[in-house]
């Protein structure tokens, strides 16, 4: 949407030239009915002999005025009421309650009810639409203001003795700007379409020419489809409405449809060596400066290897790259397990949790909150007995499988995660910060459990941790990553 200014600008220019130089007036009925488009009448004439281009010029004016007036009034209302409710908290329950009530019913129904008894005069419609369309964004602005008010820079500004007015005019506009812009554009579209819809139903202002009124007039006469005059009576207002509203949608959402570089295809030649290996991995996340370069390491069955390092050193990403779950565009080099490339499309279904498993860092986040634990075992293809056996080995009752994650304590979930990791007796396990969220007693228990399991199954374990004590206590080897992109 880089050309937004030029498109809107050239539309305004084109329209004003037409507005001031077109020879016929919308109010003159002096021509023959249903004249086809010609050099005299670019889009022909209608059933009562008005020039269609003149009508469109007039209709565009009144339709756009609806948009501008309603959008501006409604935006003002949402900002004023939103700030009033959210910042001063005065009459908050009144405005918020009113917004709630107005949000329950579709605006259209209320508008229809009112104009059924009062007629659909143009100004009446403008007022109605402005008064009914503020609630949704008022609530968003209110929430935004409430959270801004608690932010430190506002608090400090307040303590420095600045007045509310100063804060509201100096600090808030920048934070509310994009919200207000979106609200204005959305309401502009809403107002034009609602007016057009009402006019199309024959319920708009009978004397104001708008796009909707033109549609209604053309459409209320079925002969237009027989003599072909719909092409110049119905099509132009339909297209104008469609183009304007679709264009507006793309202004609002346009930023989401940008094209990005598609991920790279990668060719990898795996060596035949055994073990879980990271080969010359350089992590760069698609940007130029790498987090680390050319890291190689291997883990053999039966040994525990730890990687330690400060946060931000890329150790978790290294583990994901070796497991083959990190998008290949983010790094160079590759991970392999017993001579197979871990990022190969077929690797996941063949080996994940069967020969190689990944123990997630946070047990509570790892389980789907809406599925009972049983189903999260069963989707691996585990039988009832295997699951029960695995749960028993981590000192849990079988009945825990029927629970949802939110019904279990953190300690239980950590043990369930251990059970899940080892249920298929994998050859290799990657543990990513598995102890960082646990209290010291639980940490010891889980580490002990891991160590026992690994030894029992002759399993190669890659531990990612920032805890040097843990690393040194259980590891056969410890690798350290530093911020200076080296490994020892």
């Amino acid at each position, binding site marked *: 949407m880089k050309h937004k200014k030029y498109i809107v600008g050239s539309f305004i220019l084109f329209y004003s030239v037409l507005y001031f130089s077109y020879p016929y007036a919308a109010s003159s009925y002096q021509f023959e009915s249903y004249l086809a488009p010609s050099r005299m009448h670019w889009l022909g004439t209608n059933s009562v002999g008005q020039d269609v281009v003149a009508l469109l010029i007039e209709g565009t004016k009144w339709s756009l005025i609806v948009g501008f007036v309603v959008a501006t009034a409604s935006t003002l209302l949402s900002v004023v009421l939103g700030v009033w409710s959210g910042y001063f908290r005065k009459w908050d329950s009144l405005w918020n309650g009113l917004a709630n009530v107005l949000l329950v019913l579709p605006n259209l129904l209320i508008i229809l009810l009112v104009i059924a008894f009062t007629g659909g005069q143009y100004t009446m419609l403008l007022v109605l639409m402005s008064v009914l369309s503020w609630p949704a964004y008022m609530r968003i602005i209110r929430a935004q203001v409430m959270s801004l008010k608690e932010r430190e820079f506002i608090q400090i500004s307040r303590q420095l003795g600045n007045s509310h007015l100063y804060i509201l005019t100096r600090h808030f506009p920048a934070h509310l700007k994009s919200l207000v812009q979106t609200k204005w554009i959305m309401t502009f579209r809403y107002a034009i379409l609602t007016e057009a819809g009402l006019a199309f139903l024959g319920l708009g202002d009978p004397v104001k020419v708008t796009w909707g009124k033109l549609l209604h007039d053309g459409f209320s006469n079925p002969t237009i489809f027989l003599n072909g005059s719909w092409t110049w009576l119905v099509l132009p207002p339909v297209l104008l409405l469609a183009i304007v509203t679709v264009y507006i949608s793309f202004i609002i959402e346009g930023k989401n449809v940008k094209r990005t570089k598609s991920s790279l295809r990668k060719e990898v030649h795996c060596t035949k060596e055994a073990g879980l290996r990271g080969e010359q991995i350089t992590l760069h996340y698609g940007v130029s400066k790498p987090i680390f370069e050319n890291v190689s390491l291997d883990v053999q069955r039966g040994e525990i290897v730890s990687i330690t390092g400060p946060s931000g050193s890329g150790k978790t990403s290294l583990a994901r790259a070796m497991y083959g779950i990190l998008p290949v565009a983010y790094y160079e080099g590759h991970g392999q397990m017993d001579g197979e490339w871990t990022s190969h499309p077929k690797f996941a279904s063949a080996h994940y949790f069967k020969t190689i498993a990944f123990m997630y860092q946070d047990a509570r986040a790892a389980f789907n909150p*809406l599925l009972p634990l049983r189903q999260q075992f069963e989707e691996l293809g585990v039988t009832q007995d295997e699951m029960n056996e695995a749960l028993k080995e981590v000192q849990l009752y079988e009945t825990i499988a029927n629970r949802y994650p939110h019904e279990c304590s953190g300690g239980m979930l950590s043990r369930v995660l251990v059970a899940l990791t080892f249920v298929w007796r994998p050859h290799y396990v990657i543990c990513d910060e598995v102890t960082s969220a646990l209290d010291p007693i639980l940490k010891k228990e889980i580490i002990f459990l891991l160590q026992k399991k690994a030894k029992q199954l002759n399993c190669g374990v890659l531990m990612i941790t920032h805890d040097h004590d843990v690393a040194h206590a259980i590891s056969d080897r410890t690798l350290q990553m530093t911020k200076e992109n080296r490994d020892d």
Partner: protein
Amino acid sequence: MKHVRLRSYVVVFLALILLNFALPRMMPGGPIDFIEGQDSGPTLTKEQKESILAYYALDESPVTQWVRYMKGVVTLDFGTSFQYRQDVGAVIREHLPYTLSLVGVATLISIIISIVFGLYSGYQAVHKGDRVLFGTMLVFSALPEFLVGMFLLITYSVMLPIFPMSGAATPFLENASLLNMMLDRIQHAVLPITTLILATVPSLYLLMRNETVRIMQAPFIEFAQMKGIHTRTLLRKHVFKNALLPVFTMMMLRVGLTFTGAIFVETLFSYPGIGKLLRDAIVSRDYPLMHGLFFLFTSIILMINLLTDWIYPKLDPRIRKEDPM
């Protein structure tokens, strides 16, 4: 939370009943002067004037009028339609099935399409693999029912005369066997239903897509991928429910909007449902019919809201267990 919502429904309902009572009586000179003062209003016969006067009972005291009005609302007796010279209830009952079938079928298909497309699109969004679908939906999301319907009508009834332009059935159908009659009715309903679907799907789809994109970033989805679960299972078991829950309420509200959309669609295609009935009642100032229809539309939309609040806790195990409401 629930009580707040319930309270606002009651407020909405009472406000509309009050509005319906007050508006015609607040007009300077009452409803008759209003109609005669309008250049677009129909010219009234003496008989019609009398029926309006009798309907509003304007010569009685406001309290008596209010009591009589409320009695009508409570007993669902809205009087006799000026236009049809029949009980309002009977007129509405005759037209309601048309709208219910249009909106019902359209809603069902819309929800299925938008959930499937939204899930797929949200899953693809990470690789920007859904740009065409997303762009198309964005275009349609901008267009209201009457514009979409107009395009369909011009394309499929005027330029390519495949479907009939108006009505719900062909009058005096030849070979009127049961099968032919059914086919004829389906043929008449195709364009209106398609219009409603095209107008409803985009907003539901965009909701579903955004939520899917958000859920796809959740740790438990990454963990499920680490388990090596097939994409289809991943979407069905892990993404679908988690994404559907937050948008469920919004989706149901949109279904309520489909009923107001029916006003435009039925008017456009001259389909004899309650939407067109409402529009015609407003244009011809048939106050008793209008009153009954506004009551019906409000009730339907509030019922959908209530139903949503009732179903939602049953879908979410976290609410179900912790807070039995």
